[in-house]
């Protein structure tokens, strides 16, 4: 009974990991690759860890497996979001079939705002330097 359950779960887990790696090879675009791999690989590893929890009749192993799954589910989206944000900011090109980029407008405004802020800061710093020079004289 346990063996059958372990067989089914480990097969689904290994197959979803295989699909994730086929996706990272075949997808045309960084963002599509990211969205394919993170979810499928987390599911596959989670199922393999569930197999380990079934296999060892021990509370400590079950706790450890659950801790690893919890940690993966908590951290994988955060890491994917960070690296996707970095890729967008550093200008990674999207696929030629991309129809809509909703972030473009927002970031254009934000970049313009940041430019204004930077100019203001530079002007303020120059002002401070000038007043210091006046004081020293």
């Amino acid at each position: 009974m346990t063996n059958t359950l372990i067989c089914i779960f480990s097969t689904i887990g290994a197959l979803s990991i295989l699909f994730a790696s086929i996706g990272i090879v075949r997808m045309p675009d960084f963002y599509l690759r990211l969205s394919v791999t993170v979810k499928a690989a987390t599911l596959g590893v989670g199922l393999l860890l569930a197999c380990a929890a079934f296999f060892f009749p021990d509370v400590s192993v079950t706790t450890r497996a659950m801790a690893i799954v919890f940690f993966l589910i908590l951290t994988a989206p955060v890491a994917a979001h960070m690296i996707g944000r970095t890729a967008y900011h550093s200008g990674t090109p999207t696929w030629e079939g991309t129809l809509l980029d909703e972030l473009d407008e927002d970031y254009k405004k934000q970049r313009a705002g940041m430019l204004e802020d930077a100019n203001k800061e530079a002007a303020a710093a120059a002002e401070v330097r000038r007043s210091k020079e006046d004081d020293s004289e």
Partner: protein
Amino acid sequence: MTLDLYFDYVIFPLLTVSVILVFYRLFKGPEVVDRVIALDLIITIGIGFITAYSIRSEQALFLDVAMILALIAFLGTIAFAFYLDKKK
């Protein structure tokens, strides 16, 4: 068919083929970020491999190594993202 044979002939070959496919993307990847996610995926598959091996060899201790590897994968990806953000 025993569970050991099933793991030897089905699960490990599937995971090995996955790692080889991801290595292709790691070497080819046109951008640095592609390589970063390929590395992250390799470490995630490594966690799965260690788990399968701990079932195969009936040694529950290997799961500790998987836990440490999960921590290091997260830290590595965050560090790469931070560094690439600062670089430009």
